[in-house]
């Protein structure tokens, strides 16, 4: 009964109780609308809708995962509105965080599903094994069965992290458990992927805010990722990009070029082929992102990143099929990166065009 009362409360009242002024909330919504590629005018609409939105019932399922995604979402630093939005959900089931265990925990999930059937949100981290029963079970039930049962009454499913989005490391060659992403199990519900190892919490908060404000998921790309955050490559937005354009590259991690902040392309940076918002949203309270800390991007938000060769081998056009790739693959230095980036974009555009022709968006 107590939960009913909590679930009936709105996101707005939850935030006001925690000292967020209405103007601060409006400001957050304006910034979120902007980050989602919406007009700032939509910030006011978002603020109005989000303030009235009921705190959503959320069932959080964890399968083949390392809990790094949850660490990313819960290890928040400052009391920002983003963090409060993440906290505003009514988290009715999460076997890592919840106090009950065993039958009591499963009963909480079933109760939340029954009370909110058709309207609850499902957040999933981890891949789902299909190679045989028993690879991943919770309370004696197989991961596939749990996923299907819980998704049946969901309004939408949010796949958090690369494992839930694409299979990630559990699916890495030779994929001994037959791991698949959530989207291969759940085919009749809206599924949004927020990949990354781990994913960026602000992207999760903005996606949640969009869903609660407008009742729909934001525009997604061909891999089911929110376009606003995954529309550009790390390379496109990297502060080291001017060095790349000048052909200035670090050759080792401790040479003069590295100290001067030259481009890390030759050290294996996957920025040219990786779509994510690290370079703009950044990490750890906007402290930095991997490239800013001196290491190349490892492409963790892309499908099968673990099987795409060494993290320390330059992105080569040879990674991509097609005649252009093979030709460009014979050229050294900056031209290699340009070829790879161009090829990745060409393939992406082609996929988008094909999807457009197929009537999906």
């Amino acid at each position, binding site marked *: 009964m107590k939960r009913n009362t909590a679930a009936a409360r709105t996101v707005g009242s939850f935030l006001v109780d925690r000292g967020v*002024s209405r103007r601060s909330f*409006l400001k957050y919504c304006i910034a979120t609308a*902007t980050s989602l590629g919406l007009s*700032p*005018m939509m910030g006011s609409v978002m603020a109005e809708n989000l303030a009235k939105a009921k705190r959503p019932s959320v069932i959080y399922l964890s399968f083949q995962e390392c809990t790094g995604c949850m660490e990313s979402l819960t290890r928040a630093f*400052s009391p920002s*509105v983003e963090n409060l939005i993440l906290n505003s959900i009514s988290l009715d089931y999460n076997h890592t965080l919840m106090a009950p265990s065993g039958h009591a925990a499963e009963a909480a999930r079933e109760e939340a599903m029954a009370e909110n059937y058709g309207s609850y949100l499902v957040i999933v981290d981890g891949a789902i094994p299909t190679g045989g029963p028993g690879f991943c079970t919770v309370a004696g039930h197989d991961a596939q069965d749990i996923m299907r049962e819980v998704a049946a009454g969901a309004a939408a499913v949010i796949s958090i992290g690369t494992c839930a989005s694409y299979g990630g490391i559990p699916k890495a060659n030779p994929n001994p458990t037959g791991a698949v992403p959530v989207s291969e199990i759940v085919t009749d519900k809206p599924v949004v992927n927020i990949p990354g190892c781990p994913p960026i919490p602000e992207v999760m908060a903005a996606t949640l805010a969009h869903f609660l404000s407008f009742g729909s998921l934001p525009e997604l790309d061909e891999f089911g990722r929110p376009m606003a955050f995954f529309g550009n490559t790390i390379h496109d937005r990297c502060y080291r990009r001017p060095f790349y354009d000048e052909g200035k590259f670090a050759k080792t991690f401790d040479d003069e070029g590295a100290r001067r902040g030259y481009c890390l392309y030759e050290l294996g940076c996957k920025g040219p082929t990786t779509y994510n918002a690290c370079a703009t949203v950044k990490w750890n309270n*906007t402290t930095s992102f991997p490239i800013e800390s001196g290491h190349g991007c490892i492409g963790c938000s892309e499908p099968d990143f673990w099987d795409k060769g060494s993290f320390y081998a330059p992105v080569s056009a040879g990674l991509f099929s097609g005649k252009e790739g093979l030709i460009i693959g014979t050229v050294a230095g900056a031209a290699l990166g340009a070829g790879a980036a161009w090829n990745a974009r060409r393939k992406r555009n082609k996929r988008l065009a094909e999807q457009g022709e197929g009537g999906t968006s």
Partner: protein
Amino acid sequence: MTRVELPVRVATPAPPPNAGVLAILTEIADRLQRLAETGERSVIELQNIPMTRADRAALEGFLGPGEVDAKLDLMGQSTVRETGCRGVWWVEHRNPEGRVVSESLEITVVPSILVTPAEDIVDGAVELQERLNQWPASAGGEQDET
């Protein structure tokens, strides 16, 4: 009174803007016209428009400074400045770490972030009445002798 002391600001001619900035200025002029005629307010988001630092400076220089410069402490600082083109406001929001999270031009009578939310007015009225009701007790009958 010398010319320097006169409360008159002499506008310095801004350098001619490039094509990109000119396009934004033309858009602003169109929207300002609509605001004047129909009251329709609008926003131009600046963060998603690729501009060099020089372009931004040219835009800011062309619009010029206005009469209002408001600072708001909203879990990170926000600034709201009316430009020299009255009705065109430059609005910038920063997060608690100081990073700009939104920068836009609002073509409006007053930017929405400055307007007191209706619920806050209701809350404010209630709180003020409560304080007034408690006042005689808390003041202890002392009179202000100034």
